[in-house]
């Protein structure tokens, strides 16, 4: 009986706690809404500045220009964050492969059909990023989708590639980015300050390498652990 009372009290406490929480969060939401709604309804932000300098960047798409030229530093650090996350996941140990049932005929066939198209779409997104919405991250995530689909349908990277070549693919984007950034210092500019004539080409080189690395990194993150030698599984493409 005593025990019953206790649980009753704790349930009642919990209801009160949630009620209080809802009220507090409503106040928070109202405060946030008030803060945001009191912003001016027209604010050009930095768009004027970006549009004025777009010719210098080597690409026409303003988002790509910001990502890889004006704020290239952010993107470089972001690639490092992605890589660090993978290092963190891998440092937790290698994964014990769970025995999964063989994929159904539909998944098997669908992945065979879709993966080539996904790679094609990734290439298209990468190329189109220079003048329309698209770019390295979009292309990389489409590539990663292809890899995840392959992993789900039971495909595993063979041992031959799971060692050095996988790691090379993982660091390629960051490596190329850093090499280009440092090369700019050597030829007389500042870090990540591309000369106008080569800006487009340099951005494309960085983006190709970054796409590959992002795709491989995301698939490796999805796989969840360092591929143990012997019973291996990763994607490299």
């Amino acid at each position, binding site marked *: 009986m005593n025990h019953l009372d206790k649980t009753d009290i704790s349930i009642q406490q919990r209801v009160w706690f949630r009620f209080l929480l809802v009220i507090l969060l409503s106040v*928070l*939401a109202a405060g946030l*809404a008030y803060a945001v709604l009191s912003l001016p*309804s027209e604010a050009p*932000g930095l*768009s004027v500045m970006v549009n004025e300098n777009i010719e210098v960047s080597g690409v026409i798409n303003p988002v790509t220009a910001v990502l890889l030229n004006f704020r290239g530093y952010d993107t470089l650090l*972001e690639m490092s*964050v*992605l890589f660090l996350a993978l290092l963190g996941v891998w440092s937790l140990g290698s994964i014990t492969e769970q025995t999964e049932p063989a994929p159904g005929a539909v998944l098997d066939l669908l992945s065979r059909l879709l993966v080539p198209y996904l790679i094609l779409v990734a290439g298209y997104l990468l190329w189109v990023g220079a003048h329309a919405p698209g770019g390295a991250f979009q292309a990389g995530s489409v590539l990663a989708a292809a890899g995840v689909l392959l992993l789900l349908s039971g495909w595993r990277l063979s041992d031959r590639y799971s060692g050095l070549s996988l790691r090379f693919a993982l660091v390629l984007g960051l490596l190329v980015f850093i090499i280009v950034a440092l090369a700019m210092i050597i030829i007389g500019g500042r870090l990540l300050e591309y000369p106008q004539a080569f800006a487009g080409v340099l951005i494309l080189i960085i983006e190709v390498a970054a796409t590959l690395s992002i795709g491989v990194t995301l698939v490796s993150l999805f796989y969840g652990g360092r591929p143990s030698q012997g019973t291996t599984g990763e994607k490299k493409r």
Partner: protein
Amino acid sequence: MNIAFFYVLISIGLFTLGLYALIVYSHLLRKILALNVMGSGVFLLLVALASRTKGAPDPVPHAMVITGIVVAISATALALALMLRLRDASGRVELTDESME
């Protein structure tokens, strides 16, 4: 009333909803998902506020959101890996408060 502010209100709703779930549920997977919902709210807010220009939307917040999405994915992947590790080590998927027991 600008259409951008409609999305802004939705983003605040998402953020608050995520915060509620983050506080209320103890299962770590739910907490990770709640953080992602909160992050989506912030991304939506940034993209919505970027459209308060005369012509094309402000590209800088868009670039920030792309960067943010990648960082959020990295953090989520690491959090999930840590969660699985915790489950393997202790058999639990919650963080228990030692001082409460």
